C-alpha cells in the first residue's frame, strides 16, 4: 500500500480539520489577551469560557472546576505534587499502581525523594488493579489515590467507580489520569467519585500542548505555576486561547460521535484481534479481553523483538508502537508488560496497534498480512525460535 496506515492513535491523533479551522482566527485576527479590559479582548475571554464549559459538560463538572494546562503530563504533575503539599499535615502517604504512565510514576519518585511514601498496587494478569490490595494499603496518613482510567499500552480499563467509593469511604482524594480514556469512554466525575482528573487534547483529535486538570470544588490544592490571576490564580500564564478553542471543538466532536465511533472501532479491533490470534501461532493478546479501550490491541509475538517488527512494518508504511526495551531507551521492556507477569523475552516482542475511526477493514487486512509475513521472517532469523523448534 502506498498510503500510510496510521495505527498509533494512543501516541497521538490527527488534529481534525474542523478543529484547526476554529483555531485559526485566534492567531492573527482575534489575538487579544483574555485578561485585557477592552472589547477586542472580550471575544477571547468568551471563547475561552465556551471551551471550558464544553469540557466541563463532557465530564459532568462545573466550568470553575476545569483548569487548562500545557498537557496531560503537567496535569498529572500538578495533581500529585500540589495535593502532596497541601495535605501533608494529614499525612505523607500516596497510593498508585504499577502500571501508571511515567507522568505519574516519575512524579511519585520525585515525591518519595522528598519524604513521601508511595505504595504501588499490583495488577492482575489482565492489567486490572487489585482492589483488595488497594483497600489494605489505605492508612490514616493516606492523602491521595491516583489510578489511571485506562492504560495507554494494554488498554485495560480500571474499576474507577469502585476505587472512587473506596476513596470516599476513607475520606481520601482520588485522582485519575484519563489521558487515554477521555473521549473514548463516558466519564462523569460525580458518578465515579473522582476528585481530580487529567486529560489531554491531542489524544482526541485536538492540538498538542494543551490539556486540563479537573479539580473538584472545595479541594485546597495550591497553584502550580505562579504568576498572574489566570485560571483562578492556580495556573498562571496568559491562556492559550487558540489551543483551548481547538480543545473545546475536539471534545464537542468526540462526545457527539462517541457512540458510533467507538462501536466502529470496537468492531475493527475485534476483527484485528481475531485474525492475529487465529493466524499467527505463539501469539498472545495483552490486556483485558473485553474491558479495554475500544481502539486498543496489544500483542506479544514469542521469539521476536519488537523494534525489528516496527521497522519492518514501517517499511510497509504501517505506523505502530512496541513495549520493547529498544523503543523505551532502556534495557528493560515496558513496566506495564512486566507488571502483568510477562517474562522479559515475551515483553520484548510486543506490538501495540491503536485504531481510529478512519481506519478501514482493508487497512486492517493489509496490516495483518504484513505482520504475519514479518513475524515469520523474524522467527526464521531468531535463535530462540530455532531452539524452540529443536526442542519440540
Amino acid at each position, binding site marked *: 500500500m502506498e498510503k500510510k496506515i496510521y495505527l498509533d492513535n494512543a501516541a497521538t491523533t490527527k488534529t481534525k480539520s474542523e478543529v484547526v479551522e476554529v483555531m485559526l482566527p485566534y492567531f492573527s485576527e482575534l489575538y487579544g489577551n483574555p485578561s485585557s479590559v477592552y472589547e477586542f479582548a472580550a471575544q477571547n475571554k468568551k471563547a475561552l469560557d465556551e471551551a471550558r464549559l464544553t469540557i466541563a459538560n463532557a465530564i459532568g463538572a462545573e466550568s470553575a472546576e476545569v483548569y487548562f494546562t500545557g498537557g496531560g503530563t503537567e496535569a498529572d504533575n500538578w495533581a500529585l505534587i500540589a495535593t502532596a503539599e497541601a495535605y501533608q499535615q494529614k499525612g505523607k502517604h500516596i497510593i498508585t499502581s504499577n502500571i501508571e504512565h511515567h507522568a505519574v510514576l516519575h512524579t511519585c519518585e520525585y515525591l518519595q525523594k522528598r519524604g513521601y511514601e508511595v505504595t504501588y498496587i499490583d495488577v492482575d494478569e489482565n492489567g486490572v488493579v487489585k482492589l483488595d490490595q488497594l483497600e489494605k494499603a489505605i492508612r490514616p496518613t493516606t492523602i491521595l489515590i491516583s489510578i489511571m482510567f485506562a492504560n495507554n499500552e494494554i488498554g485495560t480499563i480500571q474499576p474507577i467507580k469502585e476505587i472512587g467509593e473506596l476513596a470516599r469511604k476513607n475520606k481520601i482524594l482520588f485522582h485519575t489520569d484519563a489521558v487515554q480514556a477521555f473521549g473514548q469512554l463516558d466519564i462523569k466525575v460525580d458518578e465515579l467519585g473522582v476528585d481530580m482528573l487529567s486529560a489531554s487534547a491531542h489524544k482526541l483529535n485536538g492540538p498538542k500542548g494543551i490539556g486540563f486538570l479537573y479539580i473538584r470544588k472545595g479541594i485546597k490544592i495550591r497553584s502550580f505555576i505562579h504568576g498572574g490571576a489566570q485560571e483562578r490564580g492556580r495556573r498562571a500564564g496568559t491562556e492559550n486561547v487558540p489551543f483551548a478553542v481547538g480543545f473545546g471543538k475536539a471534545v464537542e466532536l468526540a462526545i457527539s460521535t462517541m457512540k458510533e465511533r467507538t462501536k466502529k472501532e470496537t468492531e475493527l479491533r475485534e476483527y484485528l484481534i481475531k485474525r492475529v490470534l487465529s493466524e499467527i501461532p505463539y501469539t498472545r493478546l495483552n490486556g483485558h479481553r473485553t474491558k479495554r479501550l475500544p481502539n486498543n490491541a496489544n500483542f506479544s509475538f514469542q521469539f521476536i*523483538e519488537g523494534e525489528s517488527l516496527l521497522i519492518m512494518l514501517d517499511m510497509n508504511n504501517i505506523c505502530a508502537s512496541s513495549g520493547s526495551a529498544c523503543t523505551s531507551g532502556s534495557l528493560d521492556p515496558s513496566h506495564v508488560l512486566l507488571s502483568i507477569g510477562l517474562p*522479559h523475552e515475551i515483553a520484548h516482542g510486543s506490538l501495540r496497534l491503536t485504531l481510529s475511526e478512519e481506519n478501514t477493514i482493508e487497512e486492517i487486512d493489509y496490516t495483518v498480512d504484513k505482520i504475519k509475513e514479518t513475524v515469520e521472517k523474524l522467527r526464521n*532469523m*531468531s535463535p530462540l525460535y530455532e531452539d524452540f523448534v529443536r526442542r519440540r
Partner: protein
Amino acid sequence: MYTKKVMDHFSNPRNMGEIENPSGVGTVGNAKCGDIMRMYLDIDENGIIQDVKFKTFGCGAAVATSSIATELVKGKTVEDALKVTNKAVMEALDGLPPVKVHCSLLAEEAIHAALWDYAEKKGIQIDGLEKPKSDIHEEEEERDKISY
C-alpha cells in the same frame, strides 16, 4: 535513526541461517535484555573461514551488526577474524546510535564465542582469544545501577 547501511543489512541480512555440523558455534547475549546472537563457522583445515551464518533475536541494529560481522570474517583466517573488533563492525555500518553500540560488542563477542567453540573442539589454543563472556549485559546492568 539508522544509517542506510544499517537499514540495508537489516532488511536484507547476509548469511542468515544455520550451518549443519559447524566447526564452531557461539551464542551470546540474553533474552532478558532483548538480544541474542548466534554465529556458526565452517573453518577448513588451513584455518580459513569458508562459511559463516548467523541467527539473531534483537533490534534492527542487532540484526545489522550480525549481518555485517559475517561479511567481515568470511574468507579470513582465524587470526584475522579475531581482529574484527566492534569498532570495525560500527565503521562498516557507517556508525550506530549511541544506545546501540552494545550491539556491535555483541557481534564481536559472538565471533569470539564461535572461535572459542572451534578451538575447544579441535583441542587447540588460539593466541589472543579469551574465553567469551556469556553475557555482555552484566557490565551494562551494573553500570546502570550505579547511575541511578
